[in-house]
């Protein structure tokens, strides 16, 4: 009974029953088979809400989480996003909405997110950020909307999901824990939830500092089990990479000058 073919057939039938609007607007692939293969859509669906938070000591500032998000947005705009009906994805700007003005555009550019393509918005509080996100998601002229929030309640996230599904604009919520307060557990309507924690990088044979390493944790995803990967941080095109020793290949990409 439980042959792979039957399972696949059942899965595809379930997928058809699920929200039809979330599909068919393309996905953003990570370009790494281990991650893409684990996700039911072979990437992050564009018309959905995804939550990203920093783990461990990075939960307050979310420096790694924002670079991870910038990588996704950069890939969304470059050719790595899978086009729908062979039409090229127009290079539309993204909206980056914050309450604190500490995001540093040259840092985002290091992950391939060009400053010409980022519109920054500064709002007073979480409620205003969520309102701005919803307003922006209803506008098809953007490719994605990212909001930095401390809390993401169920109702607000649901509204974001509906807006994103309607226009096909990707919604990213970057959770930042307020300083001196514990992590708030809670459910929301995000399609996938990610937690990015900085990890010690592998030592170089010479003094210096190599590519940063992250523990990328998929804590929740519709249609996929939670899983954790060890990854090397985004490069200048926003792509992650498997660490050389884990990928079981010679360290050819790690050149030292």
């Amino acid at each position, binding site marked *: 009974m439980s042959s792979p073919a039957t399972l696949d057939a059942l899965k595809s039938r379930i997928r058809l029953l699920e929200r039809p609007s979330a599909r068919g607007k393309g996905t953003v692939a990570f370009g790494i088979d281990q991650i893409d293969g684990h996700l039911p859509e072979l990437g992050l669906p564009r018309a959905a809400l995804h939550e990203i938070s920093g783990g461990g000591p990075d939960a307050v500032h979310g420096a790694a989480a924002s670079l991870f998000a910038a990588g996704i947005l950069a890939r969304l705009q470059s050719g790595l996003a899978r086009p729908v009906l062979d039409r090229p994805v127009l290079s539309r700007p993204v909206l980056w909405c914050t309450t604190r003005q500490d995001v540093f555009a040259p840092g985002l550019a290091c992950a391939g997110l060009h*400053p010409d393509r980022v519109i920054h918005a500064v709002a007073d509080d979480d409620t205003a950020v969520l309102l701005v996100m919803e307003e922006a998601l209803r506008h098809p002229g953007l490719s994605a909307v990212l909001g930095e929030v401390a809390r993401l309640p169920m109702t607000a996230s649901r509204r974001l999901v509906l807006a994103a599904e309607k226009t096909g604009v990707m919604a990213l919520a970057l959770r930042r824990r307020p300083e001196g307060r514990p992590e708030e557990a809670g459910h929301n309507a995000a399609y996938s939830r990610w937690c990015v924690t900085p990890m*010690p990088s592998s030592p170089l044979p010479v003094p210096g500092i190599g590519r940063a390493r992250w523990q990328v944790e998929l804590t929740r995803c519709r249609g996929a089990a939670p899983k954790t990967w060890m990854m090397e941080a985004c490069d200048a095109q926003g792509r992650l990479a498997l660490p050389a020793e884990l990928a079981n290949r010679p360290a050819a990409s790690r050149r030292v000058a």
Partner: protein
Amino acid sequence: MAVDARAAALGLRAGMAVAHAQALVPNLAIEEADLAGDASALQRLAAWCLRHYTPLAAPSPPDGVWMDVTGCTHLFGGEEDLLTGLAARLAGAGIASRAAVADTPGAAHALARHAAAPITIDPPGARASLASLPPAALRLPDEALAALRTLGFDTIGQLMAAPRAPLAKRLGSAVLHRLDQALGSAPEPIEPAAPADMPRTRQGFPEPVATPEDLARITALLAERLCEKLQQRGLGASRLDLVFQRVDGVAQAIRVGTAQPTRDAAHLTRLLGVQIETVDPGFGIDSVCLSAPLTSALGARQDVSELCVPSRAPDLSGLIDMLMNRLGPDRIFRMQPVQSDVPERCLRAIRPLAGAEGAGWPDRLPRPTRLFTPPCRVDAVALLPDHAPVRFTWRKRPYRVRRADGPERVFGEWWRDDAETWAVRDYFRVEDEAGQRFWLFRRGDGEHEQTGDLQWFLHGMFG
């Protein structure tokens, strides 16, 4: 007779007889007063204020301009910044000015003319500043002033303390009316002065309306009519004022701006609709006026056909307008690279819809995703002159550095400031035991004393 500053230096005073002045200063240049010219110049000044500051501005002859700045001050950085900016702009145009902000037009009028400082901010609800002014500040006729002087009233405070009924009997109700206006117990509406060529449309009601639905409907109607007018003249509006006249004579205004000139009635209705809830209808509104104080030429444009694939990216100006009016005009921006090695100066905010230039920052320099402004002071232990720190303490927490890269030396920009001539920052990228990456810098190169005081700062965090 009126005098300018140079004439005043010669000992002349306003109000002197011309013959007296000529006797004091031979070869005195005397101009005939041009009352009509003054009035029209004042009208133009009020129209300028209307365009740039608030939808409710009106001339206050012979020498003043009213501005109702309720709800507008945050756009100019607060009341004080608004007034200093306004005074500086007027001074740039050669106009000497005095200004005051107060709860009522009467009080502002009095403080602007009779307070000691050229710029006065009266805190809300304060009567003390008004009490110390002379009764002349109340805009009273000369005979009333003379009577007050005879009665021994030297300040408005004494007038406020005096019993009202005998006062009204002695001086007439005009004095008390002016006093009430200054204290806010009698209304004094400001009738905005719109220039004749400003596109505007007005709707009065036989019965006052008050429900938000009615206001939204009338806003849509007015926007449609205004857009027709703009269409006829080939104009697009980049600022709109919607003024509600309440039954009790109070005017309330909504002002919205657009990033690009537009005459899309649906879009303008949406922009105005967001702010309608800020209007307090009170006992009802009996007329509404929509005007476009800032316009520019906007030609006709062909609609995009459904047959062809759209070649241009979709228009974002609608969304940008919406967000700008919601958050404030300087809180939506894009970052543009600036050629500077100092991290906090290597970018500046530009308008979100400004043309893309494609310029970026140098690729090879790693930059953090979070930048702290100002940099956080840390205590670090490092070998001089050019070793990375081995440990540092930030917010009372110790961090042990496992790996580090640097220094990247940034020099002060001597062309900006003499104090920066020798300034040096040495930046280090460090990774702690947990894998977190920090951007630290030391003021000074560790060898020469004039380059800095060797204090360590945390400037950012890498992803």
